[in-house]
């Protein structure tokens, strides 16, 4: 008993969340049961409005579930947030306009009390990780949309949290950069054994990255399928042409289509 709870980094049981709006309640999540173990890479996929962001926000204790229980690192989501257990990449870049790119990346480092030298060193490292060397001194509005998004990824990576929650981090990137960042992310994951929750709309991306893929469906938002990946941990880019990969991708697509089907 003890074992399973400690190994489950994120554990949701019967999770539900209903928003009250001006024209009636919106059930964003219902009955979500999910347990994510240490070192797992779990992708969330599903039509827009199905509750992916809402679920990630619950895990991050930015939203409070109306029903069910949720534990993160064996404690409440809020306690985990207070222990700075995770880094979060928002769906929109959300850079502070009065800070330069480097200043934005420095923000969490300042708050968490990293030394000045350490800050500089980390900023350099993550800027080059997301291919933004030389843009540290620019202001957000001087960057293209994709560059802003990369800056926000860099910001979340800078302080090396054990859990990474990423909400469509690569949505605004072209395939080449995306491939590169996918590879980098996998390397980072392999190296550091982070636990990663990852929202994406790209089936190949989900399959390529994940150890498990959670398919969700809207109105009310819920989990309709959970697909275990049988791919090895070591994944060169051309693994995407293997039949195994294509089979998994197919299963995900079917799951997605089913989710769409019962509402359109």
């Amino acid at each position, binding site marked *: 008993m003890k074992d399973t709870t400690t190994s489950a980094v994120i554990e949701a049981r019967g999770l539900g969340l209903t928003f009250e709006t001006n024209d009636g309640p919106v059930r964003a999540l219902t009955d979500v049961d999910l347990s994510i173990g240490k070192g797992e890479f779990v992708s969330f996929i599903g039509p827009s409005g199905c509750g992916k962001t809402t679920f990630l*926000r619950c895990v991050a204790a930015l939203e409070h579930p109306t029903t069910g229980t949720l534990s993160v690192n064996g404690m409440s989501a809020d306690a985990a*947030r*207070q222990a700075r257990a995770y880094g979060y990449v*928002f769906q929109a870049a959300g850079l502070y*306009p009065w*800070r330069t790119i480097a200043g934005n990346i420095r923000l969490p480092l300042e708050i968490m009390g990293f030394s000045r030298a350490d800050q500089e060193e980390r900023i350099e490292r993550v800027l080059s990780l997301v291919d933004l060397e030389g843009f540290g001194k620019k202001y957000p509005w001087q960057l293209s949309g994709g560059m802003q998004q990369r800056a926000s990824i860099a910001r979340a990576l800078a302080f090396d949290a054990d859990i990474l929650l990423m909400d469509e981090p690569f949505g605004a990137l072209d395939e080449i950069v995306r491939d590169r960042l996918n590879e980098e992310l996998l390397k980072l994951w392999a190296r550091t054994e982070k636990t990663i929750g990852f929202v994406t709309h790209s089936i190949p991306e989900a399959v390529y990255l994940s150890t498990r893929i959670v398919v969700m469906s809207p109105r009310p938002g819920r989990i309709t399928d959970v697909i275990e990946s049988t791919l090895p941990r070591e994944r060169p880019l051309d693994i995407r042409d293997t039949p195994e990969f294509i089979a998994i991708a197919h299963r995900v697509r079917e799951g997605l289509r089913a989710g769409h089907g019962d509402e359109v």
Partner: protein
Amino acid sequence: MRSILPILTVLLAIVAVWYAAAVWMNSTWTYDQAARAGVEVTFGEVVADTLAQERPVLPAPHQVAKGLWDGLFGQKVTSKRSLVYHGWITLSATLLGFAIGTVMGIALAVGIVHNRAMDMSVMPWAIASQTIPILAIAPMIIVVMNALGLQGLVPKSIISAYLSFFPVVVGMVKGLRSPDAMQLDLLRTYNASAADVLLKLRLPASLPYLFASLKVGVAASLVGAIVGELPTGAVAGLGARLLSGSYYGQTVLIWAALFAAAIVAAGLVMLIGLIERISLRRMGLAR
């Protein structure tokens, strides 16, 4: 420099309207006086007279300009007839009051944003405090402060601070609450302390509101300093000038003092505008 032409144009228009108004408003007196003396006056005479009256209803621009010139440059700055001397006295109370008011205003706003009890209880009473007619309680403030052994600059500054803290509170409460949900959520994911949220998000985000408030606040401070001069016997300062001009019907003197006060206020507002531009530019917010 590009603003010279527009300002001159606007000024010219104002001066033209002003002259016309001066002739119109002062002519009643001219006609009355002529009637009392039993003489007829031509329009030319009326115009000449209205622009040179000693107690005009509306002094002509050149009369005010001359009064201002005499007051500013016509004597040593240490002379009691110098507007520079009186202006300085008022300015010093204004600056002290503005500093106190701003610090108080920001502190209160921070408290209100962070503490529900303060939000609910302080704000309504801060509002109520501002509806108290300052001129009515200024004498009491002076008397009470006097009993506490405070005289001179400080009581005036307190009144000035009392008027200026409010715009700062209102603006800053709004400004400190202006960051959107995502910007706040980001800091929550870092479990940032309240102080961090304040320093790194709320304060920078509130700057546009802060500067608008400061401009209003500094003008209010000046009014407060002038009002504060009255219950101390109005011995010195622009308020004293205004009032004594008023006692003796020295219209031109009133207007000169009024303009001096407005120059001080406009100068302070422009100074804040300058600081605003510089700091927004340094923060990359000026686009």
